[in-house]
């Protein structure tokens, strides 16, 4: 069970809420002050991407953000419910080039920013999993 879980309807304004929550919980979990900007940006990118995917695919389900405090790390998972390879397989791929480009730029930012990151594309949707070290207590 994640320590904190946030679900929100795919609207751009809630991405801010997700950033705010992720940064607050990360701080509390002991993530280095200097890395909080990274957390904020990476979560924002992952959520913006998920919001874009849900909107362009007409998915009504909420975007899910799971925040986990483990012993040595703080991890975040952002899950969308758009099945398969998101960037190639969307039904109206032609019309959505701009959105896709942004999604890919978002992934580029995340990969450039976060050392420990994993992107999983599953049948039920995609998950971006990221983690940051926390001090041993």
């Amino acid at each position, binding site marked *: 069970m994640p320590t904190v879980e946030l679900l929100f309807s795919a609207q751009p304004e809630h*991405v801010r809420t997700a950033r705010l929550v992720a940064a607050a919980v990360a701080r509390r979990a002991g993530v280095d002050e200097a890395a909080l900007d990274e957390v904020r940006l990476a979560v*924002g990118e992952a959520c913006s991407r998920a*919001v874009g995917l849900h909107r362009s695919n007409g998915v009504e389900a909420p975007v899910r953000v799971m925040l986990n405090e483990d012993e040595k790390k703080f991890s975040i998972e952002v899950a969308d419910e758009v099945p398969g390879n998101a960037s190639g397989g969307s039904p109206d791929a032609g019309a959505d080039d701009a959105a896709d480009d*942004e999604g890919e*730029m978002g992934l*580029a930012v995340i990969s*450039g*920013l976060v050392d420990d990151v994993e992107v999983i594309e599953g049948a039920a949707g995609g998950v971006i999993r990221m983690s940051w070290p926390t001090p041993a207590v």
Partner: protein
Amino acid sequence: MDLSLSTRTVGDRTIVEVGGEIDVYTAPKLREQLVELVNDGSYHLVVDMEGVDFLDSTGLGVLVGGLKRVRAHEGSLRLVCNQERILKIFRITGLTKVFPIHTSVDEAVAATD
């Protein structure tokens, strides 16, 4: 914090001073502003990012879109930015090679490449 936008002209350049957060929520406002300027015939833009607290890839996308638009008119889009955490995002995405980035508005206004 929300996005703030203000524009002024210096010679043939139009300075767009941006403040606050450029993200998935506010980026459309910046896009509108840039489109409007180009439609009104301002093809040499300087985007002053010194007041920007937060920038994500949606914001980058809007800036790239602006650049494409002014280039279609042989124009230019220059950025002013000294903030390391913002510069980092341009570096990560390789956009430092795409945008001329200056340390002051004066420098950007004077630049001709």
